[in-house]
């Protein structure tokens, strides 16, 4: 179905991104890192957890940590509604679950339509956004999972 897009951008590599929303802002993540998307389910809280860590859940026998993307990205916590879901991401060799407000779509973005985002934001904080994509008149921030969730990102 995306053949047209593909030929149009044949000079540049096309990647697929999962687009999700947090606090009405669109974010994208490389689909290659996404293992699956599950609905919100009972999560066991962990003592002494940092604020963005919701707890752990049982994904068919595998225990995975669950993080709240809102808090991780610096937004205020809200009550999850029925559109909220958990995106299971492969981080290095481990799975983690990330709660997002809602998942929208998977779209293809050619590499050459991505713009590098400035590494440091005006408020001096390091940006989680690796690239910015402008397609279909929409701006989407492609987040770099490794920056958001790695040790140094905390």
């Amino acid at each position, binding site marked *: 179905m995306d053949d047209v897009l593909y030929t149009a951008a044949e000079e540049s590599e096309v990647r697929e991104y999962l687009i999700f929303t947090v606090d009405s802002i669109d974010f994208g993540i490389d689909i290659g890192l996404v293992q699956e998307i599950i609905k919100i389910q009972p999560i*066991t809280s*962990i*003592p002494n957890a940092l604020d963005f860590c919701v707890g752990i*859940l049982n994904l068919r026998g595998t225990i995975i940590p669950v993080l709240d993307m809102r808090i991780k990205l610096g937004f205020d916590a809200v009550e999850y509604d029925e559109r909220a879901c958990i995106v299971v991401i492969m981080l290095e060799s481990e799975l983690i679950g990330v709660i997002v407000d809602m998942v929208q779509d998977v779209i293809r973005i050619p590499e050459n339509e991505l713009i590098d985002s400035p590494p440091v934001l005006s408020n001096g904080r390091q940006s989680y956004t690796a690239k910015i994509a402008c397609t279909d008149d929409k701006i989407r921030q492609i987040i770099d999972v490794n920056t958001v969730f790695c*040790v140094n990102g905390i």
Partner: protein
Amino acid sequence: MNIDESMLDVYIYETQQLLEALENTLFEGESEKALGSDHINEIFRIMHTIKGASSMMEFEQLAKLAHALEDMFSHIREKGVPDGDWQGIFDVTFSAVSFFNGELAKLQDKSSADGDATDILNMVKAQLERLKKGSPAAVSGESESSAQENMEKLSDGAYMSVLLPGAEEPYYKLKLFFEEGCQMESIRALGVMESIKKACSRIAYIPENLDSDSASAEIVKNGFCVYLQTCENPDVIREIIETTLFLKTYSILPIEGDDEEIPASIRRANNQGDEARRGGNSESGAADNISNEFIAKQNFISVNVNKLDHLLNVVGEIVTAQSMVINNANFGDLDRSGFDAAAQQLHSLINELQDIVMSIRMMPMSTLFQKMRRLVREMAKKLGKNIHLEISGEETEVDKNVIDYLSDPLLHIIRNSVDHGIEDETVRAAAGKPARGKISLEAHTTGSDVIVTISDDGRGLQKEAILKKAQEKGLLTKPVEEMTDKEIFSLIFLPGFSTSSEVTEYSGRGVGMDVVRKNINQIGGSISLDSVEGKGTTHTIRIPLTLTIVDGMRFSVGKTSFIVPTVSVLSAVKPDPKDIITDPEGNEMIMLQGECYSLVRLKDFFNIEEGVTDINEGMCMHISSEDRDFCIFFDYLDGEYQVVVKPLPSYLQQCTSSLSGIGGCAILGDGSINLILDVNGL
């Protein structure tokens, strides 16, 4: 090339086994600076088998190399090594083994064996040329000539020389410890000998002299070690051993008959069998013998580890399902005696099943230790150091997973010891140390843990250097003068720390001990380090023996459910506020049966929001940890469960301020997750 995957597995497994045997033979030969005729034959046979199998699998390079080695050893078999320079032979053969192992590792990783053997092939050919140049009739060394005579005698009766596969009885190594303080250990050992000798055809033991005054002390320290050869099932030996009074632990393991640790009196090298076997002079004859021998030796099948993992998981689920069924059975007024009897039987069957599954997964450390021996040899040679690796406790069995996780840390630590720990000979001489450096690698079990220690007698760690480096990297969290030695040494385990000032082939810079610790933590283990400058360094790794299925008591604090292993629980009581004492600092204590214990409120320890604070409403449990007895206070006790322990995802370490007190988690039959309390962390 289209290879059937299961055949590939068999090929890899078999070839690895053969290479391991080959390596043992080479190590033995190297220490004696020559190979006896039986060893030459063995190597020839091994190469022959590898050549055949590799060509079947169309691994051309491997087949070629095996062929070249086969030629070389065939020549050595006929003509010996005229100039007596065995070292060249050993070196080239060791290199070939490394090449084979490398290619097999690639195959195991599902990539193709694409290594180029040309260089090493040329080395083998050069050796062969050298051998051919030497005088053809020369006979090297006395042992060699007598062996040759032996062979000639035997080849006269070539037709009767094919040994039946079953005629070679397997060897076992038995090691046992008596209970502490049982006294007269040497005579107890003698009693063991008396009782098992009926079942064995040949037997030898260490300490050799049980009548000597020091024998008892030696047995207390190192255990009593028996090497035996028997056609009986090892279970027969086990049965006999188990009736020994005051026996603490024992292990019995199959061992290769030509393993160098077997006392020479019963080692296979003395056995005529090997020479007899080479009687078949034609190549095909030799090949037949190999396959026969292989079948006779391998009373094992290889199983894909994934299947075992799956099996373990299923058994875990069964355990959970079983306790659910039993805990939820509601009979009202009906008679439940039939159900209870059946449940009891089911329970014991499942326990047995569990034990079997666990035992299948248990593997001795020997393969892992062998790998280290190889590493030390290669590195010492390259770095021009003189190092002896002393190994003990390689029969210690641990879960397959543990072996996998332990491999990299051990490699890393031993590399460090060889590269940075052990000094050059001149430096050692100047320091008044023996020229030969020593690294010892030891494993033993203590109840629920396996302890692996790696120590060297090298230069030790320099505290000053560590502190300086830590300071540079901003890793210090408290004033230097307040730090204990242990705390200083543990700085090494922090990410981004590495004391190596130069980068060598073996110890790269940057990837450091933090990775080692991470690996060990992943299987619930811990590592600590001790060092004396100028004297050496000791690493101690502690790993749970099998932490997979435990009996536990479930309780809750607020909404959080915990499971504490039943072995740590001494009693559970409803506390009386009268028994609670608060000291001036606000620490609470509780009186139990006239004794005073500190009271840990888990709600506070874990910072859990909800939960009982009134002593009257909660429960207490009397807990015994490694170093102290104490009490914990929580909301309510839920009952006993059997659970499968899973490690916490290691990523959680980045999401919490502290995970101490939590040893893992368990999924119950209803899918809920419970945290496993680590009583040593409270």
